[in-house]
């Protein structure tokens, strides 16, 4: 349409409600889109459809009983949530975790990161219309879920990482399963590359859309792969190493331009790095117990802590205030999905409606975590 014509035909902005029952909103998220034709003028995420009041629920349970609730925040990577919560309570109660437990925690957190990124690849593929691309990562994620099922008896809500250590030691069968998985992982990732990364249509949809510059990413407080895709080298596993992460050699993949493509590639590369960490941790697994001496009735001293952990979606932070009783006085959870979701408006402005779906997908929010 030429300039002259577009001045004559005035288009009117209108609102379109996308979700909460839209197949590509990854759960129950509503996006209020203000559109000018097919261009997005404004995108407002409306949250709260999955609110369960977990922070409040935790105030009425003792420190041990809070564990199943942290599982239900980011249910795709429950291990990482448990990990963050346990670290916070351990710091509060000044508990020392045995080294073997630290290594096992790292193994499980990294395996869960791979599983979570597989979900990301699968859901991204199905959102851009490549339904076949979804099946493969979901099939492979099943291998990790089988490992977890063997380990702790649940496929999703693990409650495996406990205050003071882990629930049980690794059995020979579990170690074998992890080794088999690590051996196959490279072929799995190659398959995704063949299916998706090399696909011209897929590239066309992702490249140069929803660009976030490093400065904007920092201003929005983005963390995790979202931030690293914009080229900011910030990974808590390196910058604020916890739970023996300093023992392992791994790279932090970075993007250049901060577009959807970079966010995809960063996560693809992270899977290989996670596998590298798991391999090193399994090889160097120290002997010893997997549980510290934790009192049956845990009464941490008065005070407050804020502890952060690098989850698959970014910085998972737990702020716990103790009043010296068996129950936490207040728990606040920094959920990376919630904060990353704030970038949606910036990522959608000026792009087409079809790109909203892709932007949404590369943020990779888990609504259980967003709504808490």
């Amino acid at each position, binding site marked *: 349409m030429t300039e002259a014509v577009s001045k004559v035909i005035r288009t009117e902005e209108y609102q379109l409600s996308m979700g909460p029952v839209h197949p590509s909103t990854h759960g129950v998220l509503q996006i209020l889109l203000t559109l000018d034709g097919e261009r997005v003028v404004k995108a407002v995420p409306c949250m709260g459809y999955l609110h369960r009041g977990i922070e409040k629920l935790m105030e009425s349970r003792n420190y041990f009983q809070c564990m199943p609730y942290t599982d239900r925040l980011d249910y795709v990577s429950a291990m990482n949530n448990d990990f963050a919560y346990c670290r916070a309570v351990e710091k509060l109660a000044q508990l020392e975790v045995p080294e073997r437990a630290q290594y096992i925690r790292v193994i499980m957190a990294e395996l869960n990161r791979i599983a979570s990124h597989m979900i990301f690849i699968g859901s991204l593929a199905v959102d851009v219309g490549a339904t076949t*691309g979804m099946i493969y990562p979901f099939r492979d994620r099943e291998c990790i879920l089988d490992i977890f099922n063997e380990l702790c008896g649940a496929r999703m*809500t693990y409650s495996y990482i406990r205050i003071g250590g882990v629930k049980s030691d690794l059995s020979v069968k579990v170690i074998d399963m992890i080794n088999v998985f690590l051996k196959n992982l490279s072929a799995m990732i190659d398959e995704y590359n*063949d*299916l998706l990364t090399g696909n011209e249509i897929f590239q066309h949809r992702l490249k140069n859309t929803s660009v976030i510059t490093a400065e904007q990413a920092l201003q929005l407080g983005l963390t995790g792969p979202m931030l690293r895709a914009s080229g900011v080298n910030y990974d808590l596993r390196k910058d604020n190493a916890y739970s023996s992460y300093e023992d392992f050699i791994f790279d932090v993949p970075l993007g250049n331009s901060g577009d959807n493509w970079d966010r995809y590639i960063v996560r693809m590369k992270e899977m290989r790095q996670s596998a590298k960490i798991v391999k090193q941790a399994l090889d160097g697994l120290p002997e010893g117990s997997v549980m510290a001496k934790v009192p049956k009735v845990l009464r941490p001293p008065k005070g407050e802590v804020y502890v952060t952990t690098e989850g698959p979606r970014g910085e998972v932070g737990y702020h716990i205030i103790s009043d010296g009783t068996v129950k936490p006085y207040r728990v606040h959870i920094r959920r990376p999905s919630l904060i990353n979701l704030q970038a949606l408006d910036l990522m959608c402005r000026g792009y087409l409606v079809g790109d909203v779906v892709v932007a949404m997908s590369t943020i990779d929010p888990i609504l259980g975590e967003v709504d808490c």
Partner: protein
Amino acid sequence: MQGKGLLTGLSVTIRHFFGKKVTVQYPEEKLPMSETFRGGKLVLDQKKCIGCRLCSMACPNEALDLTVETDENKKRHMKKYIHKSGRCLYCGFCVEACPTKAVTWDKNYAIACYTRTDLTYDAVKSDGRNETHE
């Protein structure tokens, strides 16, 4: 070459089309549950139970409603062991808390039921059937 990526992707699909199936043909085929599997209904071994109530104290969501009775020898018995499975988080803390290993999961994962009352059952009378509570 434009379109080469598409063809590579298609070759993956075709290769798997003639490959081995990875899915399980449920319900004809069933997967065995792992040793540690948490799920199904709670089974109470009354001979082992000492009526200490540690299981209900460990429960994060008050899913266990117990009635303990003391007999003439001052020995505690579990009269009712109501498991409100609708409230249950399946964390297995009750099973872990038991000092005598009297509580276990029956590992039967097909526990869907038609009415809300069917979710609540008494593990003392557990003979593998849906024993509804009131």
